[in-house]
């Protein structure tokens, strides 16, 4: 079974200059360095994750993404990655714009709020969905901007953002014919590789 990181690694070109927003303990950057010889930096705010990055020799910059990315110059990276963080950002649309200013391309992943299990909990239970991918109760969740695959597509269209490729995982971490056909119902996690308007 492919993990989310494997998909992202497939999407990154060798020797790319990478900025990983919300890089966690640096696992993805570490693997990208080993498999794709990338260079770059992680951006993180959680203290123990920053120490995790340092312990494995991954460049990490302590920075609050919500404070903006003005400090990163235009065109300074080949690719900007944001893995499962978009929904916790205060201004996700501005952030996607910023990612595509800083990098030639970007990779964004997020949990699909229209996944049928979420719909079921909301429809039959009448409560905000809680699952493996969205484990928090409504009152203590960092996920303040949850969206569906349709929502994200709509935003990309209105922003004139080019969708270079898209993968949708089902609950088994697989992309099947079914998830391709009914991605907004069967998709648990969405992966987008985005580019500037052509």
């Amino acid at each position, binding site marked *: 079974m492919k993990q989310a990181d494997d998909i992202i690694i497939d999407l990154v070109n060798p020797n790319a200059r990478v900025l990983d927003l919300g890089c966690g303990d640096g696992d993805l950057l570490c693997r990208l360095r080993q498999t794709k010889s990338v*260079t770059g*930096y992680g951006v993180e705010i959680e*203290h123990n994750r*920053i*120490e*995790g*990055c*340092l*312990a*494995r*020799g*991954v*460049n*990490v*910059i*302590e*920075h609050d993404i919500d404070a903006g990315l003005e*400090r*990163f*110059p235009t065109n*300074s990276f080949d690719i900007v990655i944001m893995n499962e963080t978009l929904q916790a950002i205060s201004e996700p649309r501005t952030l996607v714009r910023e990612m595509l200013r800083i990098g030639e391309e970007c990779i964004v992943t997020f949990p699909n709020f229209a996944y049928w299990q979420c719909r079921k909990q909301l429809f039959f239970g009448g409560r905000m969905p809680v699952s493996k991918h969205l484990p928090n109760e409504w009152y203590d969740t960092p996920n303040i901007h949850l969206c569906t695959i349709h929502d994200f597509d709509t935003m990309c269209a209105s922003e004139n953002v080019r969708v270079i490729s898209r993968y949708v995982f089902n609950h088994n971490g697989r992309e099947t014919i079914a998830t391709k056909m009914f991605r907004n119902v069967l998709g648990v996690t969405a992966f987008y590789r985005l580019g500037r308007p052509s």
Partner: protein
Amino acid sequence: MEADSVGVVTPECAEFNEPFKMENGAMLPYFQLMYETYGELNADRTNAVLICHALSGHHHAAGYHDADDRRTLGWWDNCIGPGKPIDTNDFYVVALNNIGGCHGSTGPTSNNPEINEPYGSDFPQVTVGDWVNSQARFADYLGIESFAAVIGGSLGGMQAMQWAIDYPDRVRNALLIACAPNLSAQNIAFNEIARQAILKDRNFNEGRYLAAASKPMDGLGTARMLGHVTYLSADGMELKFGGDVKSDDAADYYDVVGEVTSYLQYNGQKFAGMFDANTYLLMTHALDQFDPARSFDNDLVEALKKATARFLVISFTTDWRFAPERSREIVDALISAGCDVSYADIESLSGHDSFLLEIPRYHRILTSYMKQISESLAT
């Protein structure tokens, strides 16, 4: 003595008889450097770490000079020792007193061989670049081709940065703590007031006070008081001096006044008794002049493109002498220069002084980074 102490250490002296040309063109016919080492140099000579000191620092960074006297503890003992962030089980740690200093290395209190009197105010103006060049000579003396890390806080961090630019092949990691890429106008203004306090002391005698009976103690003490306040934060001082007493009682008010006054005077006088006024002038001028971008058309990115070391930059939230924004300037320039860099901003109430303190998160960051270096040595 604590189990994680390097124990009792004895300073050593390295002598250099080849003349040393300084950046301003002056020549030192001879110089010596006082130094201490902690830990063992490995067989490949790859585990050496250089500690660069700040304005008032010296070679005695860790351990005791006298096992029975806690006052002889090194200035960065909380960070250097077996099991400490700069772990002497892993690294051969070298600390020295810079030229121009007043703790045994050649400086204004040393004998000027030309006139057979102390240099005094005739000692040539040193720069951060001069320190780095003399430290490189010192590394040759120790047989160290490249340092696993050059580490410094404040003015020490500036030396680490200069090392990475001037000797890229000899520094594998540069740790810049509570540092800045150059001095702000405000920084320079504070230094100038400190210098004026010394220069206007009636005992300064144009810097030739060593021959006279009395030293410019008042001026040096005042300079230190001013400097000391810039090392603390407003909130930290509130906490220290019980300024949170919000009563109208005049007695409480005078308690705060009295405590601040006696604290500052004690520190000023203590410092004036141990330090040399000419050295203080030299060190503050070296700070004012520090700007590695200057030789690169004022482009810090171009300057840092010469560096090949990996960098760790650390700032402290309440440091207003070299504020976090100044560290971020360095980090952003390093990113633009394509250098490997990590950055952490440590929450602390203690202002600029934080870099000397045992702040848990700060030490965990240093530990994680240094452990990774020592692991890379083993492979």
